[in-house]
């Protein structure tokens, strides 16, 4: 069992293997993820029942919740990759962080924006300085810092190391930010808004929501592979295996 895992780890670290496999996997994952997103969106937008309290606007949930949840999961996965890169110097982990950062930033942006657009008609305000929103904003800043850090170093390896350090600093910092905003709010006593909704959600609304979450996760998997493939293609374009592969195509 251990041997199988070890083999898999070594294969995962090999660029030619990844490039070959990802080329086969991408169309399949892409097809499923896009169709899932389309199905769940249509289901959520047109066929799920209208919310008794919020009306139709609640349907933003089918975009907001998946985006926010995936934006955090991406960051946590990146911090795992950062640790792997710093400890075992696995090049693929560097590729992973660099590739997933723009996707994470995009979904954090979608989450923040859809939250604001949702909040305006529902609670009468675009933005609240509570712990969740603030830490999501900080998460967005960290994504931007990670993307911006890429160009600061001349050596690819140095850039990957620096980005790994920031990613880990961020994963330590985010809970601290969340906690400290909580402390801060107890003094400032903000308007009593509960973003978490509170009321239990009916199954007719829940099924498309779960489908959309699944769809977005698959979509991140799909675009993640795409971005990693693109990154490998530019890092390895002078390598023999890449020249051979692309001239055969």
């Amino acid at each position, binding site marked *: 069992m251990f041997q199988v895992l070890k083999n898999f780890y070594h294969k995962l670290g090999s660029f030619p293997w990844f490039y070959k496999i990802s080329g086969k996997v991408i169309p399949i994952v892409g097809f499923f993820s896009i169709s899932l997103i389309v199905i769940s969106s249509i289901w959520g937008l047109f066929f799920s029942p209208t919310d008794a309290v919020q009306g139709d606007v609640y349907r933003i949930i089918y975009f907001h919740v998946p985006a926010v949840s995936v934006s955090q999961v991406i960051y946590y996965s990146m911090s795992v990759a950062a640790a792997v890169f710093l400890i075992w110097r696995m090049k693929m982990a560097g590729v992973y962080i660099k590739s997933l950062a723009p996707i994470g930033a995009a979904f954090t942006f979608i989450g923040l924006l859809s939250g604001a657009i949702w909040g305006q008609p529902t609670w009468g305000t675009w933005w609240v300085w509570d712990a969740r929103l603030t830490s999501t904003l900080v998460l967005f800043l960290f994504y931007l810092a990670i993307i911006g850090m890429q160009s600061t170093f001349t*050596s*690819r*390896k140095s850039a990957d190391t620096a980005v790994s350090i920031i990613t880990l600093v961020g994963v330590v910092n985010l809970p601290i930010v969340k906690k400290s905003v909580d402390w801060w709010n107890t003094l400032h006593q903000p308007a009593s808004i509960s973003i978490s909704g509170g009321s239990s959600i009916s199954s007719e609304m829940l099924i498309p929501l779960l489908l959309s979450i699944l769809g977005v996760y698959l979509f991140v998997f799909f675009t993640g592979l795409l971005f990693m493939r693109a990154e490998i293609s530019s890092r390895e374009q*002078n*390598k023999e295996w890449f020249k051979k592969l692309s001239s055969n195509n």
Partner: protein
Amino acid sequence: MLKTANLSYKFDDKYIFSNLSFEFANDSVFKLVGDNGSGKSTLLKILSGIYKNYEGELSFPDDNLVFYSGHKTGLKNNLSPRENIYFDIRLPEISHSQINSVLDKLDLIDHADIQSAYLSEGQKRKINLASFILSAANLYLLDEPFNNLDRKTTDLLLEIFDLKINAGAKIIFSSHDRSSDDFPLIDMNLFN
């Protein structure tokens, strides 16, 4: 003895030089030559300990005391030449009379107390040279020390080389000038 065995250095995936095996005997001057980008500066930076991620082996003598001088001199523009030498982190504690005599030798004594920003490039190199003269290291790594120097200072530098060698030190310096002098050459082009 300073020795390298199969020393290689790569930047990302591209080797700057590879398989450099060499023994640097004591009491001598070595001259690194080679084309631009052949790794002269890189080798000096590896020997000085600035670059650590080389491949192969590198062994130093036990009493190793390195003096490194690169393209960038580490000179502070808002300190005077005197202060720059006094606070040079490569030097042990030195007295002001020592500094004065060196500055005198280099014709810098008139400029000793103005801000270094007002000096010419050649004069700035001379300040760095002053540190080299005052240093008591036993391994000197100098990156293009003869650049920007006038005739007189060049001769002085060669004299200092002799003094250091007689004191038992060794000097490795880089140059893009292959001609003249009788220093043993290390041609970096051979290791690309």
